[in-house]
């Protein structure tokens, strides 16, 4: 009797150990969201950034609707100030939303935040410093922008089998450049379109530089059907160059990104075929949703746009062409 008892106890112990081993791996649950009492701190780098002003308005509204407290502080472009602000948040807040003053200081901010989860927005830290359900980047999915450009322009050209294209890239080494440019290439490759890149060069986001680069290209006298620019200013520069060189902007299609004031105006005027808008409000809402989930110790896995590795929440871009440009026009 006693022997059996002891044996049972032993077996039980072993079972418990084994169970603990397996259970220890996955205990994250995701229940319905709702953030009663959750406090979120938003650290922004600059109070004058219009993009951020739009973003904060959307976030405030979302936070109010979700019943969470959202406090906003500005670092005025100082890494030190930002670190101090994050350090002080420890113990007072449940999650931090941060627009890094300097994208290379992500690790420093993570250290300052202690155990608090951080959602980075707008300025992308290195992927190595992101961690599943802890340090998450919320942004528009750059590849979508390039894909929209390619898709719209190809359709605008009448879906030809072969396309001669110029790509004006932003700054060499900038995180947004490769995804945006590659997405254009990928789209044509995937649609079995013979993409002939007659000119691909960096114009450093600048309309003037775009103009200059195109002037050099002019000498090669290669034919081209369209110009893809990594941002609107370069697209605007390209339009100017086209006009100066007697091209018809309704035949040579130009696509930009960001839907700036000038870009949007160019779309309305018909000079620019299309541009792509970052869904600022969507980003703000996604950041709040993500922050609530992380503050409550849940996973972001169930949120829209969350990647499998739970390190990114991608908010879709919005394509803007003549049909809908007016509603995105900035004053």
């Amino acid at each position, binding site marked *: 009797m006693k*022997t059996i008892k*002891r*044996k049972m106890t*032993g*077996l039980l*112990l*072993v079972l418990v*150990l*084994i169970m603990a*081993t397996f259970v220890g*791996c996955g205990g994250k649950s995701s229940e319905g969201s709702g953030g009663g009492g959750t406090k979120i701190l938003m650290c922004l780098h600059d109070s004058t950034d219009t993009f951020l002003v739009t973003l904060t308005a959307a976030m405030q509204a979302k936070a109010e609707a979700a019943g969470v407290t959202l406090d906003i502080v500005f670092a005025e472009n100082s890494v030190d100030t930002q670190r101090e602000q994050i350090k002080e948040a420890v113990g007072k807040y449940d999650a931090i939303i941060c627009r890094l003053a300097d994208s290379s200081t992500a690790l420093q901010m993570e250290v300052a935040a202690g155990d608090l989860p951080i959602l980075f927005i707008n300025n992308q830290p290195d992927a*190595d410093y992101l961690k599943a359900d802890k340090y998450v980047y919320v942004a528009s999915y750059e590849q979508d922008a390039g894909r929209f450009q390619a898709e719209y322009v190809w359709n605008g050209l009448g879906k030809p089998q072969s396309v001669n294209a110029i790509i004006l890239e932003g700054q*060499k*080494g900038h995180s947004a450049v*490769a995804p945006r440019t*590659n997405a254009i*290439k*990928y789209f044509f*490759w995937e649609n079995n379109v013979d993409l002939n*890149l*007659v*000119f*691909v*060069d*960096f114009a450093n986001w600048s309309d003037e530089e775009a103009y200059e*680069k195109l002037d*050099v*290209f002019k*000498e*090669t*006298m*290669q034919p081209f059907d369209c110009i893809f620019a990594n941002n609107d200013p370069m697209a605007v520069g390209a339009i100017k160059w086209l006009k100066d060189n007697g091209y018809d902007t309704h035949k040579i299609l130009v696509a930009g990104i960001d839907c700036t004031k000038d870009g949007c105006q160019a779309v309305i005027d018909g000079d620019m075929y299309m541009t792509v808008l970052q869904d600022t409000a969507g980003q703000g809402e996604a950041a709040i949703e993500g922050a609530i989930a992380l503050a409550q110790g849940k996973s972001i896995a169930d949120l829209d746009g969350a990647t*499998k*590795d739970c390190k990114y929440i991608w908010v879709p871009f919005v394509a803007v062409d003549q049909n809908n440009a007016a509603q995105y026009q900035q004053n």
Partner: protein
Amino acid sequence: MANNSKGKRQRKIKTKLLLLLLPAVVVTIIALVVISSILTRQSLTEMATAQLDSSIANQSDNIESWLSSNLQEFSIAKTIIEKTHPDDAALLEILDSTYNFNAYCKDGPYVATASGQTYKAAESTKNFGGIQSEPWFKQGMTRVGLAYGSSYTSSDGVNLISATGLLKDGSGEVKVYGADLTLDQVSTIVNSGVKMESAASFLVDISANNTILAHRDPSRVATQITAEDSDPMMAGIAEKLQQRDYMTTAIDNYEVAFREIEGTDWVLVSYISNSVFLQDVAKLTNVLIITGVIAVLLIILIINLTVSKVISPLGHITKHITDMSNGDFTIEVNQESNDEIGMMGSKVSEFVESMRGMLSSINKESAKLKEQSNNSDKVSKSMYDASRSQADAMQNLNNTVDQLAVAVNEIAENATTLAIVVSDTRENSNQANESMKETVEISKKGRANMEHLSVAMEGIKNSNDELVNSINEVGKASEEITNIVGLIAEIADETNLLSLNASIEAARAGEAGKGFAVVASEIGKLAQNSAASAENISNLINDVGKAINNVVSQAELSARNIEANSDLIHAAVDTFDQIYQNIEKSNELIDLMIQDVQKVDDVASNVAAISQEQAASADEILETSHHMVEQANNITLSSQDVADNSHELANTSDTLTSYVQKFKI
């Protein structure tokens, strides 16, 4: 025998301990092995993935920096040319001077114009070919900044990539500046840059239908990687490349990582076979299992040794206890260890010591006890005898008194019987007296009744006489009625005559007397009716007269009968008187007899009372002597018990002595 049982017990304890401990140990060790294997597998896989990630990151960084440093070196000459706007001779001089500037670029930098003009260093072996159709020239026309294009095979049959760009020297002519790197060199860089043991890498150009730029297997270089590849891992990689899914993943027992090389359309792929690190898991598991088995064996051995060592003193103690149970208390127990078993030994020793002392004192005490019990046995025996004879004497006395009592009782009984008989007699004569009195009463009543009857008879006779008188009166009245009726009959006859006369007169009168004639005939009829009635009444009265005469004669007969009865009753009354007088006399006689019986009863009662008193006294004496006999018997029994007890005591002390003598002390 003792050794045998000792050995048996030792085995039992050992076996028990082994049975208890071994399963627990084995299960624990198995659990540990399984858990460590699983955990190791998990963490090794994670580690391998992480290591692969870091290896590929490092490698891609290296490739990127190698490419960009080359690019920068190539850019130096390009910048110089663009800044200095050299003529042809100066341009060649610049190209000559920068030849061998970069160790990887065998042909050095070169320049070609759209018109077919080419410039290269003197030592360069660059074969320009058809310029306009050359891939490098086409690539160079698409950019100002120097950049790498897709790989291609040169006219010499060498796989190359070229860093090319438009030369912006302000000449107005389209000039392309370029520098070549062979894919072999890229391969060397890729293959030698793998930072993880047993991992391998290859480079794919996704802009050229996934052409492999660098691979360990030279036959793979410059071929395309497709989803139809015979190697499932390569096919899987091709699929991932097609989907642009560059997340580190497991494909066909390989961990595969992807990394895009910045500034190019290249993707670096790094992979490692699961078996490489799972081999470690298997090795570890084997080591764990072997260690586990050894541990189990060691534990068995240790338990065996420990138990043997711990319970060896128990053997001695067991032997001593066995001896003790056999009655041998001459043993000496040595304390062999300082643990609980040692303590047990010393306590057994103390026990043996105290037992020995106890047994010897019991021995002494039991001897004394035996002596004493023998003494008391004797005393009780003599006491028993004495009480026995006393009881006998008492019994004799008792019998004598008993006989006396019986005699007295008989007398008393006889006297009592006599008294009862006399009493009964008196009772009976009393009852006779009562009966007599009742008889007198009854005869008295009979006489009175007879007298009453006589009086009644007299009354009846008077009434009968009155009746005769009354009837005679009635006879007289009926004679008067007969006279009256005769008168009526005469009247009726006269009336009838009158009516006849009237009728005749009427008939004479003729018509005038007609009415009168009718009345006269009616009256005639009436008179005739009256005469008939009177006759009837006369007849009736005659009948009444006859009846009355009958009644009178009957009444006279009754009067004579009543007189006769009256005489008989008087005679009966006289007879009753005589009976009454006789009974009175008998009654008096009975009263006398009762008085005599009363006297006899008194005497008999006295005798009975006296003899009863005597009987009671005899009973008391008997009771007392009974009591005495009982007590004498009790004494006998008690002394018998005392004798028995002392006997038993003697036996017990004998037994005790024999027991104690069994122990060796």
